[in-house]
């Protein structure tokens, strides 16, 4: 039995190690190695930090990097603020059929490709779009208005795309909060504000953290929404990575960009986990 157990362990470990090793760890090491080399001649390379210096020395790159980070944080906070009351409604107020159908409705956009969702926003927001026509019909504006290709449109798209990943973990954690605890809070003279702050939010913290991590990640790594909804000035860091890799064929610089994006996302997730005292294992499962 012991020998059989050991064999089973090895058989189960092999796919895991192959997957993590060949598709995650080694590719990232290789990407790092590519990012620290510099082309000095045809097919000749030397190790140097030149690509990282290029990144630090070019304001466009740095500004785009910072903008992407800040806008992603903004999108995450907005998603949380917009989604929390809805999650609370689904978890605590709606009952029975209404509850399960509202929850299913939240999942619907997830079943639809991000491309379709973005396309929907383009139809709504563009100059000849529905909202522009509606505003003209109401007499609020004189001519067609272009609502697309700016930061607001981009944020609307980002929040829309990631809403589900905030609402679902929030509903799950809020459902486990016993109604009687909230009632006890009121009996003890708490106000709605103080009960929200001292009972509901602390209880929902694991859901808030895991939702925020996923939403932040999805916004930071998003390519489609900023490209389609954002304007000329709302360049996203992923667009820089794409253009270095595919358009300019400068893989060394592109790999360095990729690494910076990875460091940024890891740093912010680490910070969020530390600030709230959560661990990755707990929030992701």
């Amino acid at each position, binding site marked *: 039995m012991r020998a059989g157990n050991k064999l*089973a*362990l090895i058989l*189960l470990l092999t*796919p*895991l190690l192959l*997957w*993590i090793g060949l598709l*995650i760890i080694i*590719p*990232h090491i290789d*990407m790092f190695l*590519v990012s620290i080399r510099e082309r000095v001649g045809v097919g000749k390379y030397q190790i140097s930090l030149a690509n990282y210096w290029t990144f630090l020395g070019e304001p466009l790159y740095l500004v785009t990097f910072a903008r992407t980070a800040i806008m992603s944080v903004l999108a995450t906070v907005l998603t949380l603020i917009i989604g929390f009351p*809805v999650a609370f*409604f689904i978890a*605590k107020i709606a009952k029975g059929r209404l509850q399960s159908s*509202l929850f299913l*409705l*939240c*999942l*619907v*956009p997830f*079943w*639809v*490709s*991000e*491309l*379709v969702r973005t*396309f*929907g926003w*383009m*139809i*709504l927001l563009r100059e*000849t*779009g*529905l909202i522009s026509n509606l505003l003209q019909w109401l007499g609020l504006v004189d001519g067609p208005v272009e609502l697309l290709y700016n930061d607001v449109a981009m944020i609307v798209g980002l929040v*829309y795309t990631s*809403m589900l990943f905030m609402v679902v973990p929030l509903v799950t954690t809020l459902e486990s909060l016993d109604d009687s605890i*909230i*009632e006890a809070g*009121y009996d003890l003279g708490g106000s*709605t504000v103080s009960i929200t702050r001292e009972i509901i939010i602390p209880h929902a913290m694991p859901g808030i953290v895991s939702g925020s991590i996923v939403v932040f*990640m999805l916004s*930071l*790594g998003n*390519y*489609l929404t900023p490209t*389609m909804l954002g304007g000329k000035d709302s360049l996203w860091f*992923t667009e820089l*990575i*794409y253009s270095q890799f*595919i358009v300019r064929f400068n893989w060394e610089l*592109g*790999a360095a960009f*990729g690494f910076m994006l*990875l460091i940024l*996302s890891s740093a912010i*997730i680490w910070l969020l986990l530390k600030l709230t005292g959560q661990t990755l*294992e707990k929030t*992701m*499962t």
Partner: protein
Amino acid sequence: MIPSIRQPRALSLAYRAYVTLFFVYLALPLLVVSVFAFNDSLFPSLPWKGFTWAWFFGDQHPRIGVFHQEPILRALGNSGFIAFFVSLLSVAVGTSNAFLFNRYSFPLRNLLYVLMLMPLVIPGIVLGISILVFSSTMANGLEDSFGWDIGGLRPGLMLVILGQFSFITTIVTLVVSARLQKFDRSLEEAALNLGASPLTAIRTITLPFLLPALVGGFGVAFLMSFENFNTTLMLVGSDAPLTIAMFDRLKEGSTPLLNAVSLLLMLGSSALALVMISFQRKS
């Protein structure tokens, strides 16, 4: 607040209005995409020029419908091919991972568990470029040292499958693990006591119990693969899956054809979702 606590009527009405508004916000983009698939105009926008099926079945220029668009149908085929293999692979590896982490203790278990979760916190585009860089290093290395030219290591279907598999496996692992944790191991022990071999016990007792999670995991993997964009974008070769093909069209300017494709996609994935939900209910 909760129903057992009385609130001012205006407040609870405002709350309900907010939740309603939220669902309008969720539905609106999907609704307009669907409606404009039937607009008899070359642009998916107002004015409304009348109802038509041309964007589905039309075969006359310029209104060539989805079912007569060779490139779109081919892209759909590519997507299905990719999604099928990604789901198959990730359910296999995910199930193996679930058994491993639920039942065995081994050195570095916690480290490996965290590494298993990692793909969820790596931006998709970074996963894509790292696999692109590594596979081309491998391809160049093999070509320089042995003169082998391995097409599978160049951007194309194979790399797209590997790239999507690399993070979808984590999700399937979590789905299957959640169900495996609820399994009562005494059932398996009973089978062993009755003389079943360990493999028979797993095949006849544990796997049937896991079946809803396996089907659910397959469905989720299929959908995630089908709609994946970021990782795929970096690894795609000449045979693009549907999301990439649609993206290329959208960049050139949109016609209601894209609405028609989108509507069909929505119907397809809702059908899949319904099948999965009814399957989950049954078991």
